[in-house]
């Protein structure tokens, strides 16, 4: 079947009333948490996972995906109006977006952010649809050795392209892998690391890990700082662009979309890396780099397009190879698993309606976001006036209900709280939690493939080096590691991430 045929099948699924409603709910919830600081897409998706049990798998995935890209829209709104990124991926938008707002151009900044995001959303939907078929065909040729090497490449890539200490990130992955294999070993039936606790025999739930490390830890660290949020209510008028602004912005939108689509594909990529990299590129290609940080429209257009494109194309490795590349995708693995769908190349063939429905729903969701969000900006800003002291208990409540209802067990709630404490400790020690979550999801998969690969080779570990595809991927992983040791690349990597933090 050709591209048009696939997309038509997808739209038939995505445009059913029930799926339209779930796309809308996802997009709105995403925008909401994108606007609100202190809760990100990871914690939200973890919170809502249990409520999707009752839904059709495709509706559930459409809603959860909507949260991720919806958050990119919401995050830009607060960055521009309040100089406060609702999401890390919108941090760079603050630099020029808020300057534009101070100059009375808030309307133009919001408009270009929305238009750029929508354009990027359209292009990357087509990109996902085109790349997915050949990639999943390739993946079907993979044996266990290739899968093992692919996972290693994915995990190494994820930490090299993310920021922070490499050594810590790799250690966090290994710790994640270890936590991932807690519970009954499928081959021998041995309950590992369960300490005789019946709940642990089924393994640790991904919701507990994600919610604790991302949700609870974030709330606690916010409460530790006495900082008060300032409300700079800039007046938003004229949500449109002048001709000059449009001419300046559109090349940035194109570049951002291209860059974001490609970076989204890479392990560790996704919305955040895409937006940071796009800002750096825009500054580099500009005739007058001094305008950046003082309200250059390219500084909004590029990153906002890039983060949306990146958010969408990061679904490609998940849907075609079964490998999550960031924390949100790790949770999508969890979501697919509770609906008995094994993420990987077989999804497209065994469940084409689900696959194409999800892909096209992203385009539908983006359209809804543009149409609904621009007029609703005033409402989102009002919402920010709810003080944090009232907001965080509500977030805690929804988290607690979400995790309790997984299996109506108070053990799950306590377990989540334990991960919350661990999360605060990791924040203090500057250990990023995302690699741990990736490792956690991949733990059982990695063990199974390692076991199978070595069984087939009769215990000969050189199998990973003698199979050409597997060797290529391991070489690529080594190359990535060597890259980071090079002083030049190391400096670049730090620069890209520091832009957003200063």
């Amino acid at each position, binding site marked *: 079947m050709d591209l048009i045929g696939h997309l038509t099948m997808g739209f038939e699924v995505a445009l059913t009333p029930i799926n339209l409603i779930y796309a809308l709910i996802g997009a709105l919830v995403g925008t909401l948490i994108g606007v609100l600081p202190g809760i990100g897409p990871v914690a939200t998706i973890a919170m809502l996972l249990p409520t999707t049990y009752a839904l059709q798998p495709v509706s559930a995935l459409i809603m959860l995906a909507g949260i991720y890209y919806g958050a990119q829209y919401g995050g830009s709104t607060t960055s521009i109006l309040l100089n406060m990124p609702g999401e890390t991926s919108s941090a760079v938008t603050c630099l020029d977006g808020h300057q534009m707002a101070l100059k009375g151009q808030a309307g133009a900044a919001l408009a270009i952010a929305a238009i750029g995001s929508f354009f990027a959303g359209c292009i990357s939907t087509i990109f996902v649809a085109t790349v997915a078929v050949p990639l999943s065909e390739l993946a079907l040729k993979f044996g266990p050795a290739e899968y093992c090497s692919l996972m290693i490449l994915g995990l190494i890539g994820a930490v090299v392209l993310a920021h922070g200490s490499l050594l810590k990130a790799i250690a966090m992955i290994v710790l994640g892998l270890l936590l991932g294999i807690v519970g009954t070993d499928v081959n021998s039936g*041995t309950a590992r690391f369960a300490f005789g606790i019946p709940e642990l025999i089924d393994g640790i739930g991904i919701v507990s890990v994600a919610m604790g490390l991302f949700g609870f830890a974030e709330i606690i660290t916010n*409460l530790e700082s006495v900082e008060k949020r300032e409300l700079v209510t800039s007046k938003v008028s004229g949500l449109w662009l002048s001709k000059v602004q449009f001419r300046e912005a559109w090349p940035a939108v194109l570049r951002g979309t291209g860059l974001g689509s490609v970076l989204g594909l890479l392990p560790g990529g996704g919305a955040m890396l895409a937006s940071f990299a796009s800002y750096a590129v825009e500054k580099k290609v500009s005739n007058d780099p001094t305008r950046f940080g003082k309200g250059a429209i390219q500084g909004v257009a590029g990153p906002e397009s890039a983060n949306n494109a990146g958010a969408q194309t990061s679904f490609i490795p998940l849907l075609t190879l079964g490998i999550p590349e960031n924390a949100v995708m790790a949770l999508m693995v969890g979501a697919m698993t509770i609906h008995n769908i094994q993420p990987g190349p077989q999804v497209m063939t065994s469940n084409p309606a689900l696959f194409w429905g999800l892909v096209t729903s992203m385009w539908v969701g983006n359209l809804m976001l543009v149409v609904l969000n621009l007029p609703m900006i005033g409402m989102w800003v009002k919402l920010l006036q709810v003080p944090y002291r009232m907001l965080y208990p509500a977030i*805690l409540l929804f988290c607690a209900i979400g995790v309790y209802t997984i299996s109506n067990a108070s053990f*799950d709630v306590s377990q989540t709280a334990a991960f919350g404490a661990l999360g605060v400790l990791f924040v203090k*020690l500057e250990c990023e939690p995302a690699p741990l979550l990736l490792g956690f999801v991949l733990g059982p998969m990695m063990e199974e493939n*390692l076991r199978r690969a070595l069984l087939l080779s009769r215990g000969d570990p050189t199998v990973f080096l003698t199979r050409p595809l597997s060797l290529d991927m391991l070489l690529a992983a080594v190359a990535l590691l060597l890259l980071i040791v090079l002083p030049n690349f190391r400096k670049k990597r730090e620069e890209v991430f520091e832009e957003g933090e200063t």
Partner: protein
Amino acid sequence: MRFIRHPKDFYAGLIFIAFGVAAIVIGNNYALGTAARMGPGYFPRILGILLIVLGSALSLRGLRLHGNPIPAWKWRPTLIVLGSVVLFGLIVTHLGLVISTIVLIVLSSAASHEFRPRESLVSGVLLAALAVGVFVIGLKLQLPVWPWTNSVLPWSN
């Protein structure tokens, strides 16, 4: 001159070493098997060794590089936030969603330095109504609403 120059790296390393040692010690009870026929203890053993190696490297680096001290841990938010969540998990089956919600909201609000008891009580009552509406009536999750009753309204049981 401090001995531990980069405390964040040093202590993070110790934590990883501790997890690695635990994995190996506890994992000792599981059959190791051979590479060709891995037992349940094989993979955890590999991970344990990796954690010890990585953790040691990190700790040693913490003695060499310079870094900022670990920020102080204010216990109040951690204890109150996590404590109120755990309490919610323990009482919700017995006392029902409404009472548990109000308890969670009022208690967890106390973690903020701008705690206002009356405001949190009002917000707790409103959120309890919302939670019943969304989770019990809307999403039809199996949650008790009141103590000893299974229905939404306490008097209709």
